């Protein structure tokens, strides 16, 4: 392992920063092309309805209308999806969720198009609505997708050992139920895409806020019935994604492309926030039943888990999201007997798919709340229970995988977090101070004459923690490989490009640092090319926090290929012996400590000698295997570990929680891009707190209530206190110098840590996210009577 880094791990300014602070960075909606058309979508305000007829006669011939696009305009497949083709580009006979689009108008003025939309007559018959995921598998349940013949999207079983035996051997068995809510990605940039027809022989070009250009290309090509090579996707600067600009962007790209081919003109779709929240997919709500058997000494012997995920109307990423859940549902604990069933089901609710965390924040909330509850039953501290059960090197996970070939740092991150936050002392103090001087009487919450709450008595402090292990990259989800293209110029500057997408996370910077490190130059010398499916090799999707690990590995490989071509040249040019060590550092090249030339000098020399200075690097993950039947196998080729400690104040009069401090300790392997890594922690923890404390998309009969930021609230600068990132850099043979994943682990832990902190503060266990006022005060959600969800009815 290389020990002395010159660029890696130091603060480097982002590659795309200058444009972003000056306002010159072009985001999707900033693109304007002469003669381009805009669009408006036709929807109906129904969750589930049969469409009898659509009458466009009132708008036909309007001067503002260039084209009406419906399913009849589609040459290729009429339904699309990232896993299963089940989502209609334009609905035909039925809508199954309110975001569904029946037709799209194209014309020069968006404003006029919206007026025209109101004049179209859609005759439809509302159908019964299925919103309760627990009823989705009932025998007489209505079917969302009739062709599928069932509302079951996927079922992942996992069987290890014998749970019944494990329960029998246990001193205690407890059963708990947890629920989590629907939430929105809330990237600040709404979706936008432009399709540009390039003429019959050249196909179509698509530029937009697209997270996974290669997925989008595949889907657009299938919709247009065109070969892949005729569909070129360029990514604009992406205004946030968090997993959310995949399916929706494939859909919008397909619609824009259909309209562009129909009209022969560039067509732009730009979504308002309302369109975005209405139509885009969200995070899966989960209903989770956990049963755990454990001994007096704290050892967990068996765990039985039953999880239902609400997939909404379309399959989307549900099979993969819930697959991560089944792998990680027991958390980072050594448990001999495990029996897990995770099912995703269809309802008419907004559909759900990939979102940062990807099937882990939900079970972590459950399993980490449960661990604390077990600890308190046994009079153990939250730290002790985790020390007893936490996975160590050589242990087997729930899927039967032996943890090896990397530092298994679960207990290290735990102990580090405990120490940095002074957990144990604070936890004890808070527990002792828990006694409330004044107990409000909730049956009659009006204060009587002599009742008086001193402000200081109404605030209780609490501290709580949660831990996780997380499989890196795609694991058993699919082919896992990435490519990078690197080209040295004769003046020592470098072009770099990778098939993974910059979504704002700072991947361009990280990759530039890796290339600069190998070649001993500086990140500023690297010019990062925009992702273009016409040039860049397909590297799979930018998901699963895989970019640093996979793309970083590919960039390092490309730089090393070139370095290996330069070394023989140096040796012959300076007549060096085989034993001499050539060093690339500080923009210079030296042999055994003696400077030979500068890096640009070497590039000039190599160029003049006709050496090929471009290379494609490749990184393929080690193989993983998985048995669908029993959920056993090596699910992921490596893992990362995290522990977050939340310190909160709870107002016992209002139920309000304020998160004062989160200490976030992560083993993400080698940290390449320090500023970027810290940014991932601050951002991920903040999203985790929003998820834990207040974010929720609610709906009435499937119709979403919160369609903009006035009602859907995400954390502002005032909603969160201090966040302290701490990195434990464990060794790993994989990736670039063992650099692994960080983006998602930062988000998944906060809600459980906060729930545990609330318990420490006020002694109430909370089982339902978000931990909003009603949950804290009443232990349940208040909803309109007609809108009880399955879990709460």
């Amino acid at each position, binding site marked *: 392992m290389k020990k002395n880094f010159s660029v890696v791990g130091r603060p480097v300014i982002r590659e795309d920063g200058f444009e972003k602070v000056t306002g010159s960075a*072009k985001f999707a909606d900033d693109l304007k092309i002469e003669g381009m058309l805009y669009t408006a979508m036709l929807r109906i305000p129904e969750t589930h309805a049969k469409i009898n007829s659509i009458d466009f006669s009132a708008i036909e011939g309007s001067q503002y209308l260039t084209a009406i696009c419906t399913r009849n305009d589609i040459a290729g497949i009429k339904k699309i999806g990232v896993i299963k083709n089940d989502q209609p580009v334009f609905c035909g006979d039925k809508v199954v969720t309110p975001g569904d689009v029946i037709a799209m108008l194209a014309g020069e003025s968006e404003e006029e198009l919206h007026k025209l939309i109101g004049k179209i007559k859609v005759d439809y018959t509302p159908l019964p609505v299925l919103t309760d995921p627990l009823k989705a598998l009932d025998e007489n349940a209505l079917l969302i997708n009739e062709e599928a013949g069932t509302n079951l999207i996927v079922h992942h079983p996992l069987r290890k050992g014998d749970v019944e035996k494990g329960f029998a051997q246990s001193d205690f068995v407890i059963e708990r139920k947890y629920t989590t809510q629907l939430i929105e990605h809330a990237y600040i*940039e709404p979706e936008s895409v432009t399709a540009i027809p390039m003429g019959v022989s050249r196909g179509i070009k698509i530029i937009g806020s697209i997270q996974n250009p290669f997925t989008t290309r595949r889907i657009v090509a299938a919709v247009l019935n065109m070969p892949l090579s005729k569909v070129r996707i360029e990514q604009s600067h992406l205004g946030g994604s968090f997993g959310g600009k995949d399916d929706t962007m494939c859909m919008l790209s397909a619609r824009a492309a259909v309209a562009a081919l129909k009209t022969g003109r560039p067509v732009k779709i730009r979504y308002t926030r309302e369109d975005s929240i209405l139509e885009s997919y969200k995070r899966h709500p989960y209903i989770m039943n956990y049963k755990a058997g454990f001994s007096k000494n704290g050892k967990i012997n068996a765990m039985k888990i039953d999880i239902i995920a609400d997939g909404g109307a379309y399959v989307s990423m549900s099979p993969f999201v819930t697959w991560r859940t089944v792998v990680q549902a027991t958390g980072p604990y050594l448990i001999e007997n495990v029996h897990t069933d995770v099912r995703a089901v269809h309802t008419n609710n907004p559909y759900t798919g990939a979102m940062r965390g990807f099937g882990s924040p939900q079970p972590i909330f459950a399993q980490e709340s449960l661990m604390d509850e077990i600890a308190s039953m046994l009079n153990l501290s939250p730290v002790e229970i985790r020390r007893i059960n936490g996975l160590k090197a050589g242990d087997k996970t729930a899927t039967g995988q032996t943890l090896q070939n990397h530092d298994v740092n679960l207990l290290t991150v735990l102990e580090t977090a405990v120490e940095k936050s002074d957990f144990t002392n604070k936890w004890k103090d808070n527990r002792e101070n828990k006694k409330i001087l004044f107990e409000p009487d909730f049956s009659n919450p009006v204060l009587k004459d002599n009742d008086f709450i001193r402000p200081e008595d109404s605030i209780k402090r609490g501290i709580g923690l949660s831990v996780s292990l997380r499989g890196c990259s795609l694991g058993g989800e699919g082919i896992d490989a990435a490519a990078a293209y690197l080209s040295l110029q004769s003046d020592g500057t470098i072009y770099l490009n990778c098939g993974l997408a910059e979504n704002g996370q700072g991947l361009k910077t990280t990759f530039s640092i890796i290339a600069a490190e190998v070649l001993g130059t500086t990140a500023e010398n690297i010019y990062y090319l925009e992702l273009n499916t016409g040039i860049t090799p397909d590297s799979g999707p930018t998901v699963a926090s895989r970019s640093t690990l996979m793309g970083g590995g590919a960039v390092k490989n490309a730089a090393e290929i070139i370095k290996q071509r330069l070394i023989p040249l140096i040796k012959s040019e300076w007549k060096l012996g085989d034993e001499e060590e050539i060093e690339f550092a500080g923009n210079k090249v030296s042999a055994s400590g003696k400077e030979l030339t500068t890096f640009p000098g070497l590039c000039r020399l190599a160029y003049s000698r006709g050496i090929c200075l471009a290379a494609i690097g490749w990184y393929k993950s080690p193989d993983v295997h998985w048995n669908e039947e029993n959920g056993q196998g090596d699910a992921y080729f490596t893992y990362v570990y995290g522990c977050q400690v939340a310190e909160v104040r709870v107002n016992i009069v209002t139920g309000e929680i304020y998160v004062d401090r989160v200490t976030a300790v992560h083993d993400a392997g080698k940290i390449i891009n320090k500023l970027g890594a810290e940014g991932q922690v601050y951002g991920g923890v903040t999203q985790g707190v929003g998820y834990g404390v207040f974010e929720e998309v609610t709906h009435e009969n499937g119709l979403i209530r919160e369609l903009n930021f006035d009602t859907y609230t995400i954390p502002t600068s005032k909603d969160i206190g201090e966040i302290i990132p701490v990195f434990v850099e464990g060794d790993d043979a994989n990736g670039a110098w063992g650099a692994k994943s960080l983006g998602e682990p930062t988000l998944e832990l906060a809600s459980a840590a906060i729930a545990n902190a609330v318990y420490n503060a006020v002694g109430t266990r909370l089982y339902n996210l978000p931990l909003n006022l009603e949950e804290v005060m009443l232990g349940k959600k208040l909803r309109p009577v007609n809108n009880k969800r399955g879990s709460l009815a």
Partner: protein
Amino acid sequence: MINLKFKLNGEKVSVKTEAGVRLIDLLRNNFGLTGTKEGCGVGECGACTVLMNKKAVNSCLVLAGQLAGASIETIESLAEGEMLHPLQRNFLEHGAVQCGYCTPGMILSAYALLDENPSPDEEEIKEAIAGNLCRCTGYKQIMDSIKATADELNSKNK
């Protein structure tokens, strides 16, 4: 249609427009200033923040009819060529930019704050950007950059 005259990034401009057109649309469509972003259209996200007579305003809530004689500044006016304004430089140096969609609005809110209050404390900084949503950064590095800029400008002015 009205004939509208106002000051934009230091220059006198005039434009023929409907009185009900939003400032953000004027900037983006009529003047090609696409640094001003739209995130919500209802005054909640602050991505569209510009300076109007030195105050930070949501340009999605300002109508053309309100603009006569006003002075508007957008993100494009801050740097002088390659020379970044200290706020812009500090945003980069402190890692305050991820996707960058909130960044122009965020920088302008910070600019208005420092203009009015050259030595803000942490609470005042939080307050000043509380109307600017950022989904990526968790605000910490943004607040650090604003603080660093204030310190830098204050030490220069001494």
